[in-house]
């Protein structure tokens, strides 16, 4: 049994010797009783914040889960159907999912569709760094291929079916760049920024972006890509630079395969 040394003037709880604050209500002992003891308000604020953040996180998980589900179905279908149609259908379904998710948050995302003046020097720096990044990525994949790492071809099913090159550019390069940027740097990064600080939101969206490519061998490289596209979005406060660089990378992959 603790040694009783008096009573709190605010909540009348017995207090132990040597305490400066009431362990029951937090009242500073020796001071005039506070009008309302702290605690209750903080708890209800915490509950409200939890509900808001949990709702936001559920939205992110739903979007990620739906995109993963379409990739899963497309993966299973492509086991038996070697035509480009599974790829086309999954691109269209993913686009619809992302558009709905973005539409539900359109007011919050509208700033990403504006072109903000960032200055010519900074724009040039970002463009040069993006170019360097793309060169580094292509070098990384060239090294992996030289080491004998097999990569599945993105264009093979299109070429086998005799589809023209522009269909590959649109389906493999342009549309994924637009909708992946809208999903990850738009909806997901913006939602995560409401829960986490900007750095954690940036890291998480990059991680989710890399794992959704469904190949552990490209997790590290696509994590770096997610970081770079997220960085572009944060520096430019716009989604367009990321779309441009992402599209350029996808186009490079398609053209390299077509040339090879």
């Amino acid at each position, binding site marked *: 049994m603790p040694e009783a040394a008096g009573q709190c003037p605010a909540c009348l709880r017995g207090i132990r010797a040597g305490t400066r604050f009431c362990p029951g*209500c937090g009242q500073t002992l020796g001071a005039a009783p506070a009008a309302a003891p702290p605690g209750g308000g903080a708890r209800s604020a915490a509950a409200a914040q939890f509900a808001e953040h949990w709702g936001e996180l559920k939205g992110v998980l739903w979007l990620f889960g739906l995109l993963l589900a379409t990739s899963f179905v497309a993966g299973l279908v492509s*086991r038996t159907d070697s035509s480009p149609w599974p790829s086309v259908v999954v691109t269209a379904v993913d686009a619809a999912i992302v558009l709905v998710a973005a539409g539900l948050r359109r007011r919050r995302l509208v700033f990403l569709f504006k072109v903000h003046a960032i200055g010519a020097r900074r724009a040039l720096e970002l463009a040069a760094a993006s170019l360097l990044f793309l060169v580094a990525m292509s070098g990384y994949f060239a090294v992996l291929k030289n080491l004998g790492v097999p990569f599945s071809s993105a264009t093979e099913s299109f070429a086998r079916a005799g589809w023209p090159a522009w269909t590959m550019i649109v389906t493999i390069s342009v549309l994924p760049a637009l909708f992946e940027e809208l999903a990850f740097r738009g909806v997901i990064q913006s939602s995560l920024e409401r*829960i986490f600080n900007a750095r954690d939101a940036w890291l998480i969206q990059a991680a989710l972006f890399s794992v959704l490519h*469904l190949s552990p061998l490209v997790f590290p490289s696509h994590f770096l890509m997610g970081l770079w596209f997220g960085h572009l979005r944060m520096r430019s406060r716009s989604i367009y630079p990321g779309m441009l660089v992402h599209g350029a990378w996808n186009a490079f992959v398609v053209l390299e395969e077509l040339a090879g």
Partner: protein
Amino acid sequence: MEKTWEIDAANTVKARFGAFGRKLVTVNGTEVHDTRKAGKKGGIAFPLPDGRRAAISVKGQLVGGPEIDLRVDGGLVVETPKAPIRCAACDTAAKPYDRFCGKCGQAMPTAEDYRAKKYVRHATGAIKWLAVLFLAFGVLMYFVTKGQADAALVKLQGAEPGASYTVGDETLGVEELRARLEWEPKGVLVVNLILAAIMAVLAWWGRRAPLPAVLIATAVYVVVIVFNAIADPATIGQGVIMKIIIIAFLAKGIKAALALRAANA
């Protein structure tokens, strides 16, 4: 198993869960419930000496042991741990029923906070386990796959240089197939080493930032399951109980870490 709750300076509840489902509850040393005598099932309700209503509930969990709670007038009570509770800000010893530190006035964690911390610990523990599992599985599968690939390579030695083989929906020449077979065991090892490294990094990060780490670990783990299922749909059913347990730990950890963030904000 024995549990103790110091409700306040005057009331201490002890519950002993013995063999054959026996539950003995005492308040300040006085027996208030004994299943051997009462034979009740479900929650154990009893009054405290000051008239407040107390109830102990035992809830079975999908994963882990049962959750045993004491509620007094509906409010969850902090269980008295073996090591004394200390203030996170000034390290002063505190009682489980203290809502504020007596020395610095810092708000002490509630029973819900302690529970959330436990779930987060379980989730970060699951990430560590995943790191070890991916590492062990990678090494094991490397040797298994190498044995199979070596046997196939021996068969391939006698093949005509111009021969072609159909693997899945692909047609491969001898050299392509040889390169593929040589890569196969290395690929299994590299993929699992990458996953083990990711989980190890997340386990380390989870000590400072549990919510992002658990969130990413869950995404990675689910994607690995999906990736394997695409490659071989039969893998969905393999180790399904283990998969459910790990995902349940991680999902509970996400919600608990979010609740802790909100409480500490």
